[in-house]
C-alpha cells in the first residue's frame, strides 16, 4: 500500500530561520462526551503534511490515532524543520498539552519561521478505535489578527471501528469522567460493531460512533447517549501576532 507523503518522508532544507509570526492557539473540545488525547500541533512548509484525506495514514499518524502517542509526529515534524507547539510552556517546543475534556480548552504557542507557513494539528478522540480531530496544511495568514476554524473528526482508516473496550486505549481520564447515571465509561460485553478488515485503509471523515445503551451486551461498548458526535468536534482560535 502506498503510504502518503508524510513529514517523515519529506525534508526541506531549513530556511534561514527568519522569524515570521508568533501563534497563540486555543483548541476547544466542542463535543459533549469525547476526550482529546495530548495535542500535536506544528507550523511547517508546504512540502509536508501529517495526513491527507483519501491517502493511507503514516505510521506516526496511526500511532496517534490508535493510541494517542504523538511522539512519532513530533519526531517527524522536527526532522522536517517544523516549528512544534510548546504545549503551553513558552520556550519549550516539543511539549504537548492535553488531554482535553469535553467542553474544555487548551492554549499553546508556536513560534513559526517564515519558511513554515502552514499549520497542522491532531489529537486522538477517546473513546474511538482510530478517530482523531485534525487539521492539515492550513495556510497561516500573514496578516496579524484572530482567526477561528472549526475542526472535523477523521478516521485514520487503520483499525476497524469495532467499538470494543479491548480495542480502545483505556485511559484513566476517560473512565473517571463524570459518569452520569453510570453511563460515562466504556463498558464491556459488546459483540463488535464492525469486523476486522473494515478499516477502510485511507484517512477519511469519521462516520461517528454508533454506540448503544447496553452496558453489558449489544454490539458496542461505547455509550450512544454520551460518546457520539456530529462534525465539527472542535473550535480552533488562532491569534497571529
Amino acid at each position, binding site marked *: 500500500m502506498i503510504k502518503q507523503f508524510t513529514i517523515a518522508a519529506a525534508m526541506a532544507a531549513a530556511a534561514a530561520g527568519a522569524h515570521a509570526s508568533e501563534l497563540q492557539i486555543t483548541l476547544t473540545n466542542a463535543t459533549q462526551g469525547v476526550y482529546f488525547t495530548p495535542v500535536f500541533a506544528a507550523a511547517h512548509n508546504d512540502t509536508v503534511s501529517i495526513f491527507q484525506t483519501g491517502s493511507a495514514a503514516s505510521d506516526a499518524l496511526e500511532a496517534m490515532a490508535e493510541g494517542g502517542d504523538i511522539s512519532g509526529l513530533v519526531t517527524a515534524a522536527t526532522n522536517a524543520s517544523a516549528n512544534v507547539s510548546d504545549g503551553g510552556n513558552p520556550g519549550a517546543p516539543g511539549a504537548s498539552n492535553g488531554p482535553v475534556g469535553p467542553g474544555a480548552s487548551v492554549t499553546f504557542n508556536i513560534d513559526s519561521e517564515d519558511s513554515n507557513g502552514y499549520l497542522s494539528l491532531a489529537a486522538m478522540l477517546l473513546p474511538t478505535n482510530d478517530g482523531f480531530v485534525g487539521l492539515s496544511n492550513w495556510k497561516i495568514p500573514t496578516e496579524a489578527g484572530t482567526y477561528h476554524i472549526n475542526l472535523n473528526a477523521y478516521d485514520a482508516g487503520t483499525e476497524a471501528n469495532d467499538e470494543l473496550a479491548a480495542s480502545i486505549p483505556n485511559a484513566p481520564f476517560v473512565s473517571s469522567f463524570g459518569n452520569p447515571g453510570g453511563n460515562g465509561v466504556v463498558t464491556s460485553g459488546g459483540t463488535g460493531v464492525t469486523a476486522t478488515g473494515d478499516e477502510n485503509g485511507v484517512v477519511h471523515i469519521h462516520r461517528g460512533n454508533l454506540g448503544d445503551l447496553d452496558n453489558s451486551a449489544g454490539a458496542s461498548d461505547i455509550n450512544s447517549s454520551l460518546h457520539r458526535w*456530529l*462534525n465539527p468536534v472542535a473550535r480552533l482560535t488562532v491569534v497571529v501576532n
Partner: protein
Amino acid sequence: MRLRTLKQLAVLPLVSALLVACGSDDDDDDTTPVAQPDPVQLQISLTNLTAGQPQSPAAVIVHRAGYLAFNEGEAASVALEELAEGGAAQPLLDDATENSHVVKTYAGPAAVGPGGNRTFTMTLDGITSTEGLYLTGLTMLVNTNDAFTGVNNVSLGNLAVGDSLRWNGPVWDAGTELNTEAAGTIPGPADGGEGTNTERNDHNNVVVFHSGVITTAEGLTTSVLDQSHRFDQPAVAIRVTRVQ
C-alpha cells in the same frame, strides 16, 4: 504595524442631519435630506434544512465586535438557555438591545417548518457601510431538549449593494439540559412538553456542538423522538444580501 483582521473600527458617527423645516414641502415621508446616503438595507433569509425539526422564531442581531451571544466551551447565558430550551427569542434580543455594540435586532415572527424559509429586511438607520458589522442569528430545533442552530458572530465584510453572503449553520447544544429526549422535556410538536427549565443538568454546562438525537429508532426506548427527528450538520442556511 499590521492591520488587525478583526477591525474594531468604531462606526463613524454619522452627522445626523438636522431636519430643516421646509415650508415648501410638508410631505411627512420626505424627511431625509437629499445629500444623505441611503442607510444599509439587508435582506436576510433563513432556510430550515432539517427533515423534522421546526425552528423557533429566530433572534437576529446585527452588531459590531464586542457583542458575543455565546462561545463554545463556555456556559450559556440565561437568555440563550431560554432560546435553546424553550424557543424564546426575546430574552436574547433584550440582552442584545442593552449592549452598546449592537446595531439592530429582529425577532422572527413565527417558527419555520422543515424545508421552510423566512425572508425579511433590516434597515440599519444611520449606517452606510457593512464594514465592521457582524451577524448573529439563532433559532431552536424545537424537537430537542436544548439544540439550536444559526450563525454566531460572522463578519459581513464590506458588502456592495447587490452582494450576498451565505452560511450553513451548525447545531449547537446549549449544555443546559440533559438530552433525555424524554416525554415532557421537549417543547416541539413531537412532545408538547416543557420549554425552559432553569435547572442545569447537562454533563458539562458549556455550549458544544450537538451530538445528534438517538431516538427510539436507535434504541432509546424512553425517547419521544423517532427516526424522522434526526438531523445532521448543517441545519439552517442563512443568506444575507445587501439590497441598499
